[in-house]
């Protein structure tokens, strides 16, 4: 420990920043009606919303994996015109207000959309809305990892007679597994917390499209205690993801 002492001004600002992020979470825990928590979280509406949330977020993750991994591979390994445009487009949902995403989804996949799938007001609509905001997390994590590994592994596999598809699944994919896991966890957590795109595109109906965040929002209007209990549940789920992924996290750096 021969390092110089960190400047006081920076430390103060950093502590203020940490407090700003932590205080709301601590307040939530503080206001949680712990003794009535089991009751509040086992009401029919809470259980329905939780089950729907798990179904939708896992569905969104599955969808993200199926199209996200190939998309990451395309961005990392194939040179083509307009690649930077595609990368920007893939990143866009990260910064786009989710409600805008919901409106865009309506215009694309609504009943009178460009591809009229009539997905509004269905659980598939909720899954689609969640996948829309979660996909970039997965793509960026996997693309970053793919860029970090030497392409010569692929070349060696090819000289040994492995086809491109087989090389991808047997050589390339196993090497980016930690990043895939980290990206999946982030994407899943983002899907679980999705609100704006879901309520705009999929609507709000218990058991069909009313996921936990929507339930929290509407419950807050007439039963703040129940809303706080649901919020604590979501916070706990997010913490579990972070703690579980912590060891993986290191590997990706």
């Amino acid at each position, binding site marked *: 420990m021969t390092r110089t002492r960190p*400047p006081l*001004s*920076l430390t103060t*600002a950093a502590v203020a920043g940490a407090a700003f992020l932590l205080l709301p979470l601590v307040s939530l825990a503080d206001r949680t009606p712990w003794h009535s928590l089991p009751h509040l979280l086992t009401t029919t509406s809470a259980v329905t919303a939780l089950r729907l949330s798990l179904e939708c977020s896992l569905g969104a993750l599955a969808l993200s994996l199926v199209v996200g991994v190939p998309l990451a591979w395309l961005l990392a390994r194939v040179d083509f015109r307009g690649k930077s445009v595609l990368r920007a487009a893939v990143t866009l949902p990260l910064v786009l207000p989710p409600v805008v995403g919901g409106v865009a989804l*309506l215009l694309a996949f*609504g*009943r*009178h959309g460009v591809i009229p799938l009539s997905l*509004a*007001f269905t659980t598939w609509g909720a899954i689609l809305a969640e996948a829309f905001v979660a996909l970039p997390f997965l793509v960026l994590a996997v693309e970053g990892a793919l860029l970090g590994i030497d392409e010569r592994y692929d070349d060696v596999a090819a000289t040994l007679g492995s086809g491109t598809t087989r090389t991808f699944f047997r050589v390339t994919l196993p090497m980016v597994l930690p990043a895939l896991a980290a990206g999946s966890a982030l994407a899943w957590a983002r899907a679980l917390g999705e609100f704006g795109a879901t*309520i705009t595109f*999929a*609507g*709000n*109906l*218990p058991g*069909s*499209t*009313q996921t936990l965040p929507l339930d929290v*929002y*509407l419950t*807050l*209007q*007439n039963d*703040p205690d129940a809303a706080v209990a649901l919020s604590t549940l979501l916070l706990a789920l997010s913490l579990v993801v972070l703690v579980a992924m912590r060891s993986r996290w290191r590997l990706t750096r």
Partner: protein
Amino acid sequence: MSRRALGTAVAVAALLTACGGNSNNTGSKPRTITVFAAASLTNAFAAEAAAYTKQSGVHVRFSFAGSQDLVAQLNQGAPADAVATADTATLGKLTVHLSGATTLFARNRLVIVTAPGNPKHIRSAADLAKPSVVVVLAAPTVPAGKYAVKALQAAHVTVHPKSLEDNVRGVLTKVELGEADAGIVYVTDAQSAGAKVGTVALPTSPIATYPAAAVDAAGQGFVDFLTSPAGQAILARFGFLPPR
């Protein structure tokens, strides 16, 4: 050097924070008031605000949402000078102190809205029960949703809505966009949408009453303006019924 720069930045930030806040209340009379209003009042209140500003010089800014949402926000300490909801029961849940009496300033009725031209041939509330008709209502916590449930009960119709929107304008939007075949909104909402929706009468609709109250002295002027002849004329133009 960098430490000094940072110190300066912190000082500037502190100064800015101190200067923020009550910049409006420099004179004896505030120049801008904040009014929390039910979503169904969106268009009418924009016109009310313009007229009120012309008359009094006070600017009005709004937060429009479902009435129950507004009351929840106020109870959590949201700052407003006045509040107007779409039913008296919701306003009754307000736990903050009101500076003036509650004033009824308008009434309203519900109507069925359909896509333009009514392609699903909806003629009455009973048609909303057909499985082929996608119906969207306001959530039962929203006044419009509560009134809609009463209207459907009175008509002896059981409807399975595809979505329960968190304010009545959400219902209108879903019908306008064609995502829903029909919805139940206020007559005034349907009027504001013009030719973008069709309407079918809902004779069993209860009468919605709109109360307003001032949260502080600054909001009283606007509440009084709503029941003045000028304020009532604007509400009538947007399809609202007089309070009694």
